[in-house]
């Protein structure tokens, strides 16, 4: 159930004797290190984190603390694909045989629009106050702008208040700070799985908070109308199970539009989830970072801030950022909206560590203020490009006979590659992931999203046409090889993609 080390507390004086430590050192040490460097998933060996077993994670000469080693382990394992990509990025001219990244959820379709807008002269203002220590909640001018912006685009019934806005350097920091101020170490949040896996790390690093998965099925059963449907029943069950295991659950994380499924929750569903949370006095953190990236029927999307009479406004916390909707993940801007003044204040108390540059705050305010540009230039163009890219990839997948969830939101398609696995295990999934990477295309496999069924992959389509084409071609090469492997085992040695491996 848990994806994280079970405890942080240091081992008491009666920690495992020298023999057991030695054992760990000499035997499992190597194995584990090999494991770590290979697997991009986030599962730690069960008892890591206590001082004894950490010896496994590193040699004796390590200068790091026990938690430092766990943290570094996360880094080494979770970021492998990403770093491999950074070392060998595809470039049309300079590195045409480099890796195409269809794994990182980034919108690369609108850089032209954005860099033109951000280079305009109104962006270039430098004022002394922007260079000095700020209000750690975020400069007032920016919080005012964010409140106006969210009021408008989330269609909130009443204008949102700048004082309830906290600005910091990205949603990762928001997850981290919320986990820290809402939970004690060792407590947990519920999260429907599959989910955007990096959250595990965000809530753990500083907060030492765990995630309890509400596992969703691809099979449509009972009253469900779609695969991986979240229902209150499933939430109740997961919560009960956690309680019975003695895990204290403090909140629920919802991602809407969903990453990686692309699902959009209807107002009715949203209300059900919120009512569930209210019944159990759970905080709800709603991650709406893709709210403007709904390219099919954008009007159907409803922000939680648009609901009349939230069930438990003091426990409902909304996050948004410019990383996805404005395709600027490198800008590091995220914002929290909560009616709960205590939570806002507590999060702001940590903002000293998660602040963003005053100059960038100024630029963000300018950007969010420019409704004409957003409504008439940016959003229509962005949606059109997303739609076209989605149509292309969906067409390719259909041609390959690959099932997938067709949704009209987000930058990705949730793809079912189960039939390409020789056996339904995560090991096989990992092998397939590695084959993709060896063939210079980076995808994200289901395990990194805590999907319980092996064989699902997330494919990001928000990239330039030529890269998409090449990426899909590489995907096809691997899969065609695979399917033939499955059908005619004898011919596998001669397959094209294999010979391309380095």
């Amino acid at each position, binding site marked *: 159930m848990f994806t994280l080390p079970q405890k942080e507390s*240091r081992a008491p004086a009666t920690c495992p004797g020298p023999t057991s430590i030695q054992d760990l050192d000499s035997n499992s040490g190597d194995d584990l290190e090999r494991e770590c460097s290979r697997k991009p998933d986030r599962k730690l060996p069960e008892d890591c984190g206590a001082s004894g077993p950490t010896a496994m994670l590193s040699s004796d000469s*390590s*200068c*790091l*603390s026990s*938690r*430092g080693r766990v*943290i*570094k382990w*996360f*880094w080494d394992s979770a970021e492998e694909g990403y770093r491999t990509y*950074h070392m060998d990025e595809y470039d049309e001219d300079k590195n045409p045989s480099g890796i195409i990244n269809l794994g990182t959820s980034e919108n*690369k379709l609108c*850089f032209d629009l*954005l*860099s033109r807008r951000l280079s305009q002269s109104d962006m*270039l203002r*430098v*004022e*002394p106050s922007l*260079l*000095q*220590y*700020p209000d750690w909640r975020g400069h007032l001018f920016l919080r005012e702008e964010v409140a106006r912006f969210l009021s408008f685009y989330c269609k909130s019934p009443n204008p949102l208040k700048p004082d309830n806005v906290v600005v910091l*350097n990205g949603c*990762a920091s928001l997850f*981290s700070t919320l986990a*820290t*101020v*809402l939970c*004690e*170490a060792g*407590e947990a949040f519920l999260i429907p799985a599959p989910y955007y896996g*990096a959250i595990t790390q*965000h809530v753990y*690093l*500083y907060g030492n908070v765990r995630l309890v998965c509400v596992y969703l099925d691809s099979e449509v059963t009972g009253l469900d109308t779609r695969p991986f449907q979240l229902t209150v029943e499933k939430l109740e069950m997961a919560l009960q199970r956690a309680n019975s295991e003695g895990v204290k659950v*403090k909140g629920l994380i919802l991602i809407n539009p969903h990453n990686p499924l692309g699902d959009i929750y209807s107002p009715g569903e949203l209300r059900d989830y919120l009512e569930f949370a209210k019944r159990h006095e759970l*905080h709800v953190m709603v991650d709406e970072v893709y709210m403007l990236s709904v390219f099919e029927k954008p009007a159907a999307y409803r922000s939680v801030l648009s609901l009349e009479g939230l069930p438990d406004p003091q*426990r409902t916390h909304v996050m948004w950022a410019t990383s996805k909707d404005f395709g*600027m*993940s*490198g800008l*590091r801007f995220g914002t929290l909206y909560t009616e*709960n*003044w*205590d*939570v806002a*204040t*507590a999060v702001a*108390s*940590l903002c000293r*560590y*998660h*602040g*963003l*540059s*005053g*100059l*960038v705050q100024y630029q963000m305010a300018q950007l969010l203020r420019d409704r004409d540009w957003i409504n008439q230039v940016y959003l229509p163009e962005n949606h059109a490009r997303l739609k076209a890219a989605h149509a292309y990839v969906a067409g390719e997948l259909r041609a390959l006979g690959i099932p997938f969830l067709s949704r009209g939101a987000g930058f990705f398609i949730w793809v079912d590659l189960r039939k390409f696995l020789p056996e339904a295990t995560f090991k096989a999934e990992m092998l397939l992931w590695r084959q993709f990477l060896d063939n210079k295309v980076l995808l994200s496999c289901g395990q990194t999203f805590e999907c319980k069924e092996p064989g699902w992959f997330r494919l990001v389509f928000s990239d330039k046409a030529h890269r998409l084409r090449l990426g899909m071609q590489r995907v096809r090469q691997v899969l065609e090889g695979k399917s033939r492997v499955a059908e005619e085992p004898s011919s596998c040695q001669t397959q094209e993609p294999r010979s391309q491996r380095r």
Partner: protein
Amino acid sequence: MESALPAAGFLYWVGAGTVAYVALRISYSLFTALRVWGLSHEAGVGPRLGEWAGSSQPAEAETQSMSHPSDAVHLPWGQMGSQGLGNQGVHTQPMEMMLHLKQAIEKHMRQLATRHQQQDLVPEDKRPYQAPGEQEALLGNLMYQLVNLLQSGATDGPGLQPSCPSLDVKGDAGGGQWQWAQSSRQPAQPGYQLNDPEATFVSQHLSRRGIDISASYQASFQDYKMYQGDKYHEDENTLGFINLGLSENKLCLDLMTERLSQSDMNVIEDVLLQYPDWSGHPFLREEVARFLTCYCKVPAQLDPENVVVLNGCSSVFSTLAMVLCDPGEAFLTPTPFYGGFVFSSGLYSKIELIPVHLDSESTDANPCPFQLTVDKLERALLESTLAGKKVRGLILINPQNPLGDVYSRDLLEECLGFAKRYNLHVIIDEIYMLSVFDDSVTFHSVLSMESLPDPNRTHVIWGTSKDFGISGFRFGVLYTHNKEVASAVSSFGYLHGISGIAQYKLCRLLQDQEWIDTVYLPTYRSRLQKAHRYITKKLKALGIPFLNRGSGLYIWINLQVYLDPCTFEEELLLHHHFLDNKLMLSRGKTYTCKEPGWFRIVFADKPLRLKQAMYRFYQVLEEQKQRLRVKQLESTQRE
């Protein structure tokens, strides 16, 4: 029976300790609350802003008051004539009362403790175990009465309506926490930001550590918040706060604004808008390595791979503490030292800072005031090891904050050698390295040493906040030869990342060595010199002792003669007198200084503001002299 006794004794001490702790917390909280009360009460003197709080749209009122600060509300007492002085009396008098009460409680607790010590032989079952409960009730009651008393005088006072104080004592390492329970939550009042209700009530929504974080932030930064809401401005807000407490370099904002406005700064490239390398964009890390190689006079070129950039030095320190220490482990810190480290170590990493107290007095063993020696480090290490603490490292700040000392090469080598002998990490904060303005003083970066005693355990922090006066830029650097530490710190990049656009600007800035060498640094240093000269002249005229060093943005001054008795309570009161006159300094206690009466005064500000600030400074000290005279008179009369 005999075997049960020691355990019972222990339990007794737990109980007694709890009561003592509770008493102190109550005193502190009430003390804070009184300040809140006192300050917000003042608002009643201006236009009746207090009434806004009761209006139907309080939040709007608050915003309004924040964006249009009303001068009338913000009149410093010193300039308000008799009415203002009267208020000042209201403000400080209860606080003094409170101090007396606190002393009484402490005395009472001591007596209680001795009494029980004598009772140690009394059979277990006859021990008064209910004592802590009774004491709590008694103390609670006392405090409650005092608050009621104050409230009766506060007709249109703020929303501080403590119901019966709820006591909530926790045994965890984060420290106990107790808060005013407030029955009805009221929105923040206009005027002083101090009376935000968050400071004074229990949240049902936060975790214990969340409450701790909020509270410790409130405690450390409420002055800062007040200042943010009411900054002095030459034309627009002449009665606002002048902040000589915050170490911010405001001398070169003109140069920086001009440089950052140049067209080469404004480049937007795709790569800047995408997810970065979490240890910093390679172009920036290369530039930082080159920059440090040059300005730290490093014998061999530094390696960009050993550079990690994060959004500020607090973040760098916080992540280092996370990856080098487990909760409860400790760092040695020569004291007085920069208070931000205390705050940082308590928030996320939960590590302990063990002060190595330095003496102001000059003796044979201590030729210089506050002289750091390896001997003192060694003794502190021994003592804390004996006390069962696990010391993982040593923190050095060079140039020192708040003393302004610049360590000699020999001393540095000795300290590093000491750390190596005991396998300690050394975190060296060199954030003021370019702010050495006295030509006779030479700064030696630890990176300039030919060979570091223990390169794998030496970690250097630098940032642009001080040396370039751009604290709002949020940029901090770690340089460490230890790849493992660098990569562990990088895993926090997600949480402490810097915008690509800002990274680009920083890179351009650090690249422009010609501008730095011929324009920026000469101007900056001459302005520092001038400002320093001005303040030291004033201090000399006032007969105030201070450390005359040639680095940093601040002067460490001794105001002990203005305290009677010389205690931290009196130090705090004096600090409040400064605040009452809209002048912020920082007091020695926040630097964990062992002797009361030291203050840090920042001089890196515009001449006009410095002049105004020194005028306020002078006024407060005059008033304080007056107060001391009255006090002496009273005491002689009593005798």
